[in-house]
């Protein structure tokens, strides 16, 4: 397979464009219509909507139920909170509530995370709010390769899929194949193998965990980094297998810990008898502090976890057993 290097943001755009070429029933709904997309696909399929997230999210549901495959871009994830009725009461339940008689293939894209001094209303990682719902699939890519492959799978899926895309990673470069490929939903990726401790890391923190692993390798600590990639369905097997191998676990998330994805991962590891028995030390969560995200850089940096906190977390777990 011949490879080339593109950015994470570009990978998302390529997935969108290639899938829109592939399937004429796709259409794009967002408050802005990127000119390059309008030029290629026309105004009918690239809709510039009013700033009415509730309505255009609902429109996507009705269009999906009428034979189209809408791709919605909310832009920042926080903007989707004005569309919560459509996401929670409608999109997540509509297939089930009507006895499975109709499919609703929709992708809702949004950017998550912080590190941009945009403060609380534009910096958030609220994916666990949606993990708690039944009926939505959730992807959270950490590399250009995963972004493109997961987003393609999401667009081809027959269910509503929320794509959470890390703001901090938009410029990150990485290799993608020239050929068409997909990354299946529900399959985690071991980003680095190791034998002493597992770090399950999400999105941007995958890269921080990899940096931490490099650092600790110098001290002879072998760190395995697992990226779930999809939050629903979650690849329990891969995560449990890694923890069974290493016996130790750190979970790193840019969201706060309370009822977060990190809590779910902790539960799925500890409630599994074989994995629990294999654990040599209590697990450790390295998450954002449980506060709205502040503006001023020193405040913001204080709130978010990073490689140093992951290193500290790993040391703590290693010391405990």
């Amino acid at each position: 397979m011949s490879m080339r290097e593109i950015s994470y943001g570009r990978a998302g755009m390529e997935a969108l464009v290639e899938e829109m070429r592939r399937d004429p029933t796709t259409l794009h709904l967002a408050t802005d219509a990127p000119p390059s997309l309008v030029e290629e696909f026309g105004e009918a399929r690239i809709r510039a909507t009013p700033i009415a997230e509730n309505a255009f999210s609902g429109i996507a549901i009705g269009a999906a139920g009428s034979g189209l495959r809408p791709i919605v871009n909310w832009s920042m994830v926080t903007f989707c909170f004005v569309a919560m009725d459509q996401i929670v009461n409608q999109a997540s339940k509509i297939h089930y509530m009507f006895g499975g008689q109709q499919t609703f293939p929709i992708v809702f894209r949004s950017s998550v995370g912080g590190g941009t001094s945009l403060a609380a209303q534009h910096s958030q990682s609220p994916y666990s709010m949606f993990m708690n719902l039944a009926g939505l699939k959730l992807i959270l890519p950490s590399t250009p390769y995963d972004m493109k492959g997961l987003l393609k799978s999401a667009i081809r899926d027959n269910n509503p899929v929320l794509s959470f895309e890390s703001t901090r990673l938009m410029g990150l470069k990485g290799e993608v194949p020239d050929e068409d490929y997909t990354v299946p939903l529900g399959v985690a990726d071991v980003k680095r193998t190791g034998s002493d401790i597992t770090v399950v890391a999400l999105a941007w923190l995958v890269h921080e965990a990899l940096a931490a692993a490099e650092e600790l390798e110098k001290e002879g600590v072998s760190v395995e980094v697992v990226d779930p990639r999809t939050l629903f369905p979650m690849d329990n097997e891969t995560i449990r297998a890694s923890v069974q191998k290493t016996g130790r676990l750190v979970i790193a998330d840019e969201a706060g810990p309370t009822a977060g994805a990190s809590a779910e991962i902790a539960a799925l590891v500890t409630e599994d008898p074989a994995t629990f028995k294999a654990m040599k030390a209590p697990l450790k969560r390295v998450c954002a502090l449980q506060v709205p995200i502040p503006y001023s850089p020193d405040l913001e940096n204080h709130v978010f976890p990073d490689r140093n906190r992951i290193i500290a977390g790993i040391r703590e777990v290693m010391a405990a057993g």
Partner: protein
Amino acid sequence: MPASPELQRQMLRQMQTIRRFEERASDDYQNGAIYGVVHCYIGEEAVAVGVCSALNNDDQIISNHRGHGHCIAKGADLNRMMAELYGRQDGYCKGKGGSMHIADFSIGMLGANGIVGGGLSIVTGAGLAAQMAGQGRVAVCFFGDGASNAGSFHESLNIAASWKLPMLYVCEHNSWAANTSSVMTHAQTDVAGRAAGYGIPGVVVDGNDVLAVYEAATEAVARARAGEGPTLLECKTYRWRAHTERPGAVDPRPAEEIASWMARDPIQKLVDDLKQQQGQYSDAEFQALDDDVMAAVEASVAFAEASPFPAPEAALDDVFAD
């Protein structure tokens, strides 16, 4: 275009079917065979029937919590409706939805909806799909005066008007949202007046006159099919019964107000119109129609009773599509 005599007879049958179906549903709810909550449409039958009579089979509608009338008017199967109310496996939603969530996508019935205002944008998406398909299909939203005050009303009408979507927004103005009078909640009496803000026609019609509703809907549908965009059609009507069928449900509405609207029964009005126009419609003919309708409702109950309850494990089915 006035409705043909055959069409008028069909309208009468549908209106009577809605009424008899709901009378039975209410009884069976009281005696425990139907669960949860039931909202009756009785008194408002002319709206659903008048509008749906102006539609083709492949046109789409969306409904709200008071959805039985819309389902029947769009041609839903009484058996599967009753089985759904009974919570049975052969119900439209395999027992997962109940009264507030009956849908039949095969006939363009995109579902009742338990969230007030929830359907407005969804059906606007159906309108967008219809426009993109370019086959002259239209999409219709039924919603209450209560829903007209939700933000989704404005958002959806603005988009539909901006994009000239082939749509009809039908406000069933029955003057009460649950137990609150629209006098308390509406800045202006007529919802249709808001159409001016979107530059689309806003039409007020007597919602108890099925022929008037039909004619107004026909005109709006023709406009939508011609690519001229949506219409807001406000049907003034009234529900005869309390907001829900729950025993002991409060109903703050003045008795004289209820009585005055019951004196304007939309079904009796069509019977009278038929008698007048043709001078040959008889009470005997209506009696025969009612016997038929009663038999169909009875059969739907038998169908529902014969259908098994879903297996408990079926609760895990259909969370996701394949």
